[in-house]
């Protein structure tokens, strides 16, 4: 393959050797080091290929062997150029196209973001655009190190970034933190707490009666069976330091950690209108195509909506180069579906099923969160305009949120 390309670039000839003994011609050629190939016998003569330089050396061979040599074909780039030497515009076009390809290859035509799960491609590309990295910029202006630093600085959840250029494509590979946010946040809080030396309390986030309490760190301020109000401290992070006499000499601040569950009453309320709007579609859809260039829209047909009640659906596609290089040209169609609107009333059974289903969905969600329902008195009330499901649920749920411990005044200072 490579050899044939070289031959084509240098140019070669197809010749026909006619004579009494063409074999002598072949032997003489090989003896003089003239390279010939593709020798085929054709009715008493031979067709073969020879290089241009080899052909120039043929004269003594022809004289000696008495063979007659006829050029049947000229193949290769030099002959091609010679044949089309008057077609200047064609060659200018060829040169121009090469120059265009070269000049276009100096720009970024595609930005490829890989490895992202939480952040979308669009979000990251928009972020890069804010930093001046966008489609169509010069490849030489792309600073991969800068991109890496900017992303790492702005996104805490991205723990590894690599930016590289492949051809006309900027590839940004990222790795996100796969640990759960809670674990990461907890780790962060512990670290922060340790740094500042400030502890944290656990306070009740709603009223209730504590059912179980397991404290791992901190001093419990409430006991099982005790009723607590919202905002009450359940576990404090200020651990008193006691001397031999049993007097408090100071406080050590810790991050409180406990599992506390409490019996809590919560209100439930849901309502549903007795009447609803029913749509009867008229099956007289109107479809209009359009073309958008920048902010200008060209409608290919009448764009007016003649119907009083209608649903509109617009499907739009945007012209793009590659995957993400969008051009300001889009096209699409607008579909107008008319309908007749009527007010209908729900059947009482249907209404009951609807509210019951909604309530079941609510309780299922609570169960998923680890909330145990021990009592409920939710009832459905049907009025003239709407039906309501309301009542109180008694549940056993986790209670307590963290809050920074307020510093306790130093006891020893007071004594002195």
């Amino acid at each position, binding site marked *: 393959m490579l050899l044939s390309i070289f031959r084509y670039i240098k140019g070669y000839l197809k010749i026909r050797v006619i004579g009494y003994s*063409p*074999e002598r011609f*072949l*032997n003489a*050629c*090989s*003896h003089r*080091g003239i*390279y*010939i*190939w*593709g*020798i*085929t*016998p054709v009715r008493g003569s*031979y067709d073969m290929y020879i290089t241009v330089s080899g052909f120039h050396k043929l004269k003594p061979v022809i004289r000696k062997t008495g063979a007659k040599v006829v050029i049947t074909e000229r193949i290769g780039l030099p002959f091609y150029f010679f044949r089309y030497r008057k077609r200047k515009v064609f060659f200018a076009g060829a040169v121009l196209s090469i120059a265009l390809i070269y000049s276009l290859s100096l720009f970024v035509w595609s930005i490829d973001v890989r490895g992202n799960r939480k952040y979308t491609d669009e979000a990251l590309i928009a972020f890069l655009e804010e930093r001046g990295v966008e489609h169509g910029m010069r490849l030489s202006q792309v600073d991969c190190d800068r991109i890496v630093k900017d992303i790492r600085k702005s996104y805490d959840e991205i723990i590894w970034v690599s930016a590289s250029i492949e051809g006309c494509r900027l590839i940004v590979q990222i790795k996100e933190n796969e640990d759960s946010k809670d674990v990461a946040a907890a780790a962060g809080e512990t670290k922060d707490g340790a740094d500042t030396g400030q502890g944290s309390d656990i306070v009740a986030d709603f009223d209730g009666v504590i059912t179980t309490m397991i404290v791992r760190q901190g001093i419990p301020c409430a006991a099982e069976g005790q009723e607590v109000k919202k905002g009450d401290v359940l576990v404090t992070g200020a651990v008193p330091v006691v001397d031999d006499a049993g007097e408090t000499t100071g406080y050590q601040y810790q991050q409180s950690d406990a599992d506390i569950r409490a019996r809590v009453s919560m209100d439930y309320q849901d309502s549903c209108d007795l009447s609803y709007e029913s749509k009867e579609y008229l099956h007289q859809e109107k479809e209009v195509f359009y073309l958008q260039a920048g902010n200008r829209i060209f409608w290919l047909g009448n764009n007016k909506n003649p119907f009083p009640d209608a649903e509109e659906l617009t499907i739009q596609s945007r012209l793009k180069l590659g995957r993400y290089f969008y051009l300001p040209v889009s096209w699409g169609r607008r579909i107008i579906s008319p309908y007749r609107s009527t007010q209908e009333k729900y059947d009482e059974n249907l209404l009951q099923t609807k509210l019951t289903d909604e309530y079941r969905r609510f309780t299922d969600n609570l169960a998923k969160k680890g909330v145990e329902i021990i009592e409920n008195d939710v009832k459905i009330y049907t009025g003239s305009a709407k039906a309501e499901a309301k009542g109180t649920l008694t549940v056993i749920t986790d209670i307590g949120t963290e809050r920074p411990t307020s510093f306790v005044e130093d006891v020893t200072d007071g004594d002195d």
Partner: protein
Amino acid sequence: MREKNSTSCEKKFLGHVSDMSGMPKDVIMGAPILTVMGQTELLVENYRGILEYTECIIRIQTRIGQIRISGRNLMIEYYTNDEMKITGKVTEIKYVN
């Protein structure tokens, strides 16, 4: 007749030299090397020249005698001073001394 005898004596002597010294016969005696790939490709080295070439027969002169290659659609892919490559359907390779 005397010349023929002397050539065969020379060949025998060179054969002995090659056997005893362990050097390859193609170097000492100028023996042709034929490399056949399947039935469609044949590479010939150490030859003197072509005597006959048609689509069915190629006769090659070597130092140990003639080699006659028969087949169908035979074609010389390339032909240089050192080696030649024959393609086509080779049916027979015959040494004619």
